[in-house]
């Protein structure tokens, strides 16, 4: 069974790594960020499988932290990308939240 878990882990890693070709190709930065997002999810799945194969419980905490923060960069990306267009339209976007 550990062999099966490790092979699935390797397969998923290969898949998300191939998906990283999107970072090379673009064309927009949103596409690049989506490849990063896919890589984050695949990395978490690979970690969970690795943890199950070798029985290390601390790895699950690493997966939790990654799960909590993997989407974080994408949020920053979207926020910054749309803020830039606000900048171009007129001044800095300093609209107070209501």
């Amino acid at each position, binding site marked *: 069974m550990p062999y099966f878990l490790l092979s699935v882990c390797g397969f998923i890693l290969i*898949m998300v790594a191939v998906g990283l070709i999107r970072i090379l190709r673009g064309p927009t930065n*949103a596409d690049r960020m989506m490849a990063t997002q896919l890589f984050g*999810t695949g990395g978490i799945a690979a970690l969970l499988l690795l943890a199950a194969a070798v029985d290390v419980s601390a790895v*699950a905490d690493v997966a939790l932290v990654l799960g909590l923060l993997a989407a974080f960069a994408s949020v920053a990306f979207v926020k910054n990308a749309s803020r830039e267009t606000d900048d171009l339209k007129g001044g800095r976007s300093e609209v107070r939240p209501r």
Partner: protein
Amino acid sequence: MRFILDIFTVVLLSAGAFFFLAGTVGLLRFPDTLTRLHALTKADNLGLGLVAIGLLPRTGGLYAAKLIGVWLLVLVASSAVSQLIGRAARRGTLQK
């Protein structure tokens, strides 16, 4: 019983791996940002979810709760982010 649980794990992990395959193929082959986003969410939601559920019989207690927790976290975060990316892509604010 052990045997049945192993079959369960094998089937779900294979299905999860398949969704990662589908996500990658979609991300590389689909023609524009929105369709690629569609492919990505399949891997995010289903792929990781199937892997997490497939591993459940091999664990127990707090560890199982963490497995499900990881999935729920990614589910919430990635669907929110996907919506943000999708909306920004449709408005064209992400084009360079």
